């Protein structure tokens, strides 16, 4: 499965990533992928990723431009985004 991941604000700055295309083998992990599982997967990259995605910072997720919660399922072709709580207005 292929997904696109976007990072914003503090995450983008600290991870030094704004967009990435991620390809995962089409196995049981991919077919049951959720926002939380994807966070945990990415957090294994190194200490910084661990801290940013699974640490104290609250990270919100969006799938295809919709805010979702941690249990939302991710499908092939989805655009996923991670960012801190929003602060506009």
């Amino acid at each position: 499965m292929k997904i696109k991941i976007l990072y914003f604000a503090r995450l983008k700055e600290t991870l030094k990533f704004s967009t990435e295309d991620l390809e995962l083998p089409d196995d049981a992990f991919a077919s049951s992928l959720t926002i939380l599982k994807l966070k945990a997967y990415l957090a294994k990259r190194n200490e910084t990723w661990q801290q940013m995605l699974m640490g104290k910072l609250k990270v919100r997720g969006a799938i295809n431009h919709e805010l979702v919660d941690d249990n939302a399922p991710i499908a092939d072709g989805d655009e996923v985004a991670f960012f801190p709580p929003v602060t506009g207005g």
Partner: protein
Amino acid sequence: MAIRVQTQDFDAGLEIKLLRNARKDTGAVVSFIGQVRDLNEGDKVSQLTLEHYPGMTEKALEAIVTKAQSRWDIFDATVIHRVGTLQPTDQIVLVAVSSAHRGEAFKACEFIMDYLKTEAPFWKKEVTDSGERWIDAKHTDDNARERWLE
């Protein structure tokens, strides 16, 4: 419904007038303007940068206005939000709502602002004397939104 995300400034008076004049049975227009304060949490602010999620932002704002329209009897709404680099006293956001009577317009305008603050993908970073910092989301904003769930 007019939704705009832009770097340039806006003319709030003109936007309000457009809403007023769109229908002859308009009786009320309530508007909110948010602007950059020169002070935040006790520190002097010299600059504010607004980042957003292009593609999602407009959709999120549209969804919020649609929710307000389904809940109150309003005629129309305009939402303009700036992004990029701003200075103190620069305008950040305009929400203006027209309706026949004032109660609906007041509620819808405040509802849109409360949801914008907690659901629209904007992030603020400010420059103060002690350097740059991302602004954290406020619990008071979450509480403000919770009120509407009753």
